[in-house]
C-alpha cells in the first residue's frame, strides 16, 4: 500500500473518531446544554438532607441553576452544611428559600430555590438562612399512624 493511500485511511479513521467524540460531547453529553462554568458558592444549613448527594441539581422554577458542591456534617451544631454552586448568570435575593425536594416518587433529590423579596442579592460565601429539610418517608408514616391512633382513641 502506498503512503498517500495509507495516510488517507488513517486520516479518515482519526476524523471518524473525532466526530464520534464530538457527537458524544454535544449530542449525548451536557457540554452544550446546561453547562455551568462561572459560579458563586453559598452555603445552607439543613437538619436533615435525606439522600442529597454532591452534584445534585439546584433548581429554581424547575430550571437547573447550579449544583451541590459538597455536603458535610457540622459537629458543633449537629446539622448538615451544604455548599451550593450557583451559575453567575442567576442572582437570588438574600431571603431565598432553599427546600430539598424529590424528583418523582423514587427519584433523585434536589434543592429547589424560591426567591424572596429582599432587595440585596446573595453573594459569594453567603448563607441561605431559610431552609426546609428533606421529607423522610418513615417520619411521615409514623406521624400519620400517630394521628390515626389518637383519632380512634377519641
Amino acid at each position: 500500500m502506498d503512503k498517500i493511500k495509507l495516510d488517507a485511511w488513517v486520516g479518515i479513521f482519526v476524523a471518524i473518531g473525532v466526530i464520534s467524540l464530538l457527537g458524544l460531547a454535544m449530542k449525548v453529553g451536557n457540554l452544550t446544554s446546561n453547562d455551568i462554568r462561572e459560579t458563586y458558592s453559598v452555603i445552607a444549613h439543613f437538619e436533615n438532607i435525606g439522600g442529597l448527594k454532591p452534584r445534585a441539581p439546584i433548581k429554581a422554577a424547575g430550571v437547573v441553576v447550579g449544583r451541590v458542591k459538597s455536603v458535610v456534617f457540622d459537629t458543633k451544631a449537629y446539622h448538615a452544611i451544604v455548599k451550593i454552586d450557583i451559575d453567575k448568570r442567576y442572582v437570588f435575593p438574600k431571603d431565598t428559600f432553599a427546600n430539598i425536594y424529590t424528583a418523582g416518587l423514587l427519584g433523585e433529590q434536589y434543592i429547589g430555590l424560591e426567591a424572596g423579596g429582599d432587595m440585596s442579592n446573595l453573594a459569594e460565601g453567603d448563607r441561605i438562612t431559610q431552609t426546609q429539610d428533606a421529607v423522610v418517608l418513615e417520619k411521615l408514616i409514623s406521624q400519620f399512624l400517630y394521628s390515626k391512633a389518637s383519632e380512634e382513641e377519641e
Partner: protein
Amino acid sequence: MKSLTNFFEKIGYSVTRRIQRLGTAARLFFLILISSGESFKRFHLTMKEIYFTGVMSLVIIIVSAFFVGMVLGLQGYYTLQKYGSSEAIGVLVALALVRELGPVVTALLFAGRAGTAITAEIGLMKATEQLSAMEMMAVNPVGRIIAPRFWAGVIAMPILASIFSMVGILGGYVVAVIVIGVDEGAFWSQMQANVDFRYDIVNGVIKSLVFGVACTTIALFEGFDAPPTAEGVSRATTRTVVTSSLVILGLDFVLTSFMLGG
C-alpha cells in the same frame, strides 16, 4: 514422598516463572517507553501500525457496536416500560455504552482482532530470527518494531472506543425511536440531562486509554517472549487473548471504583 516433593516443586516453579515473566514484561514496558522516540521521529512507522490495528478494526467495531446498542435498546425498553419510564431508555443506553460497554467491549474485540495479530507477528519475527538480524545491523528492534505497535495501539484504542459508543447509541436510537416509537425529543433530552461530559465521557476515554496500554503491552510481551517454535507462537497467541481479557475486566473494576469513589 517423591511425588509430594515433585508437587511442591511444580508449584514453586510455576510461581517463580510467573513472577519472572511479570518482571520481563515490566522491563519490556520501560524499554518501549525509553526507545519510543523513534516511533514519533519516524511517524510513518506508527502510521502503518495505526492503519493495521485501527482502520482494519473499524468494521468489526462498528458492526458489533450497532448490535450491542440495538440489544441494549430492546432489553432496556422491555424492563423500563414496566415502570412506565420508557423515555429513560436513552439515558440507559448512553450511560451503559459510554461508561462501560464502549471501552470494555472495544478492548476485548481489540485484543482478539489486533492483539493476536501483533503477538503472532512478533513471535514469528523472533522465530525466524528477524529481530536478532536487526540487532546485528545495529538497529534497535524495540524502537523499530515494538514501540510503533505500542503507540499505534494506545492511539487507536480511545478512537475506536469513542466510535463504538457513538455507533452503539445510534443503534439504540434506531431500535427505541424508529422501531419501537419512543419519543425522539425525550430520548435525546433525557440523555443530555443525565450524561456528564467530565464524569462519564472523559472517564470512558481514560478507561479506553488504559486498556490500550494494557492490551498492546500484553500482546507485544507475549510475542516477544514466545518460544521460537510453531507451537510456542500459537500458545503465546492464545495467552494474549486470555490474559488481555482478564486484565481488561480486572482493570475495569479497579478504574471504575476509582472514578466513582473519587
